[in-house]
């Protein structure tokens, strides 16, 4: 029974601070006055909205439908009225907003009809579709739509399922409490997942600092065969998917490859639990357990409806007076929230109140002295200082050569850096910039292709037209020879015009003229909208642009393009 464990390189051991919030049982957070449910809550395509403002919705009613297969549905967390469908600020480091459904709860918590599915007789496809429509996404942090991860990969079959109960980040205990209190649901969820991929064995990895969770899980699987609960050494980031798979199976999955290609797949315990709810009870994912801890009087875990304002959660735990900021996620990977009136999402596993004493701001950033501490700590076995050097100088090509995309942004390097460098921020900057550059490059390449294609086409068309014309002239010559005198052939000097003009005939000209007058009339109303209230510089700029457009118009005319 005792499994041989593998090791992953690097990692750190910060103070765990789990006891603060792991004592109290999971409590239900009350339904707030307003729920703001972002439409996009998973990786992949944003769901398509299904509701209109004013519409009444039931709890669990879909409000966004999955857009294609790489997407997951979103549901109303409670019953009530849709107030708006509008962009709202998201709990995201960018502080940007995106489409959200705002719901005024009616307090009745009326469910839609919940239909359990007999999963033992259902096909894997049906189950995967069901998970997609139930909005099941990874609750371990990446919110990756789970149904996609359940597709067999290149390896043909997913042999091993790894269930991630490691919860390696300090302070967070939502998975711990879930495992202690709802182990049975988790195990049933595991059974379903296992059925879908027909996995041979299941390894549940739990860090060895959570003995109660291990005991509870072991008790719950007493009957199930082939599920093994494996305590793994407590070392951040043992809960990282790749690290956990490495520790439990010895398999290393490189960046850009999926576990399924190696016959192994990893799910968070919370995900497993929500799979159980979705299939066996018919409940879509409308709530999650959130740890609220840190500098607060009553830390704990709360079953929270998606869309609940963070403020409402904070009200339950009474933050202390010296709290200076709030962190979403753990202290290692989380980010500081700009505001606290933002909604809880499926990704939100933890809210931490930070005080200077508990979470001291990192010291002054000093230059990197290439001491190598970060290299020793990096679980991805990268050379963080080199990545930093290149990211800092925006030498992205080099950063990529040093595998910046293999970085899992775990923060170990920054944690150990004696120079207090916020290394991960540089990596995120570099990665997002590179992605943007890649997008631009791809767009430019596509544009070049389309442009070249278009040039080819117009060349071909011009040639064809010339041929047609030649044929016609020849015919006309013959006709002349025959004594007739067609009108078109009379002007060989400008044959194309002669051909083209009559085609752009009177009817169309009239139409255009009419449209122009109509548009002119419209513009009276439209134009002021643009130019009204503009600063003089802005107007100057517009004039300038107009002037340039005129120039460009001239240029655009140069290629011998003919209106057809």
């Amino acid at each position, binding site marked *: 029974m005792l499994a041989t464990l593998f090791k992953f390189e690097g990692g750190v051991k910060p103070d765990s601070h789990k006891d603060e919030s792991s004592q109290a049982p999971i409590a239900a957070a009350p339904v707030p006055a307003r729920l703001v449910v972002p439409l996009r809550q998973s990786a992949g395509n944003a769901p398509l909205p299904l509701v209109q403002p004013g519409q009444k919705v039931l709890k669990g009613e879909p409000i966004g439908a999955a857009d294609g297969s790489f997407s997951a549905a979103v549901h109303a967390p409670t019953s009530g009225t849709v107030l708006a469908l509008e962009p709202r600020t998201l709990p995201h480091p960018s502080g940007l907003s995106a489409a959200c459904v705002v719901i005024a709860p009616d307090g009745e918590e009326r469910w839609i009809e919940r239909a359990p599915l007999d999963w033992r007789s259902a096909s894997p496809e049906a189950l995967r579709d069901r998970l997609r429509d139930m909005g099941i996404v990874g609750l371990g942090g990446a919110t990756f739509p789970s149904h996609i991860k359940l597709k067999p990969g290149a390896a043909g079959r997913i042999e091993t399922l790894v269930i991630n109960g490691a919860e390696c980040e300090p302070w967070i205990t939502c998975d711990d409490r879930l495992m202690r209190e709802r182990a049975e649901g988790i195990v049933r969820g595991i059974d379903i997942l296992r059925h879908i991929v027909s996995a041979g064995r299941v390894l549940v990895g739990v860090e060895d600092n959570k003995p109660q969770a291990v005991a509870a899980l072991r008790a719950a699987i007493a009957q199930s065969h082939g599920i093994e609960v494996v305590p793994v050494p407590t070392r951040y980031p043992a809960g990282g998917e790749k690290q956990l798979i490495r520790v439990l199976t010895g398999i290393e999955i490189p960046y850009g490859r999926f576990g399924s290609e190696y016959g192994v797949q990893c799910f968070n315990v919370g995900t497993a639990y929500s799979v159980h709810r979705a299939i066996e009870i018919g409940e879509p994912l409308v709530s999650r357990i959130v740890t609220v801890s840190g500098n607060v009087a009553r830390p704990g875990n709360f079953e929270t409806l998606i869309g609940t304002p963070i403020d409402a959660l904070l009200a339950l735990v009474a933050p202390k007076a010296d709290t200076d900021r709030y962190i979403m996620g753990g202290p290692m990977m989380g980010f500081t929230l700009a505001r606290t009136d933002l909604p809880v999402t499926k990704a939100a596993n933890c809210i931490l109140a930070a005080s200077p004493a508990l979470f001291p701001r990192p010291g002054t950033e000093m*230059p990197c002295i290439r001491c190598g501490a970060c290299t020793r700590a990096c679980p991805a076995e990268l050379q963080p200082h080199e990545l930093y*050097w*290149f990211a*800092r*100088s925006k*030498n992205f090509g*080099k950063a990529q050569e040093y595998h910046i995309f293999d970085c899992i942004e775990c923060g170990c390097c920054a944690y150990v850096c004696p120079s207090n460098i916020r290394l991960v921020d540089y990596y995120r900057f570099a990665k997002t910039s590179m992605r943007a550059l890649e997008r631009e490059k791809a767009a430019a390449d596509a544009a070049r292709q389309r442009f070249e294609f278009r040039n080819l086409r117009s060349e071909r068309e011009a040639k064809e037209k010339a041929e047609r014309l030649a044929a016609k002239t020849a015919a006309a010559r013959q006709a002349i020879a025959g004594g007739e005198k067609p009108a078109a052939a009379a002007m060989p000097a400008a044959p194309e015009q002669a051909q083209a003009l009559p085609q752009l005939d009177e009817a169309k000209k009239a139409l255009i003229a009419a449209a122009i007058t109509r548009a002119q009339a419209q513009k009276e109303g439209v134009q002021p909208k643009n130019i009204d209230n503009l600063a003089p510089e802005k107007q100057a700029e517009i004039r300038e642009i107009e002037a340039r457009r005129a120039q460009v118009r001239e240029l655009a005319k140069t290629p011998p393009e003919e209106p057809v």
Partner: protein
Amino acid sequence: MTGYLFIVIGAVLVNNVVFGRVLGLCPFMGVSKKLETAVGMGAATTFVLTVASGAGYLIDRYLLVPNGLEYLRTLSFIIVIAGLVQLTEMVIQKTSPLLHQVLGIYLPLITTNCAVLGVPLLNIAFKHNLLESLLFGFGSAVGFSLALVLFGSLRERLEGADVPLPFRGTAIAMITAGLMSIAFMGFAGLDKYH
């Protein structure tokens, strides 16, 4: 035998063309911003410089000296070098378009690399025979390539450094070259008989 070895060691390390003889500096400064280009330039120069050394020797020995035309050395050498460069370019283009793509833009620059003229002239000054000329030319070219590649790799790294503004770019590159030159002085004495 050791004499030939010392010629090569001397040309590569002790009196490195760039750091010791101070030749070939324009390409050294100009095409060392990236490691990749440095390698390309090094390879191209090695070929041309070696052949130019041999050709210079032959011209001097069999055309100029017998006719008392030493004053035409500069002119005949440079013309031959220019032709050689052109020829190299054509040959490479013909035999390996890929290599040509990589080296293409550097080849013409070689004509104005004064090491390519300087080394054959030094060969004459040092009274080298044909083999010695070839070795000296090859060694100098290897020394040039070595300097160029090391410098290129350093400059790539320097790009990330927070160099004070007036020193950004060529000034710090010069200073780096100076320090490299000091480091190369460590090889002093290695080309002597013991």
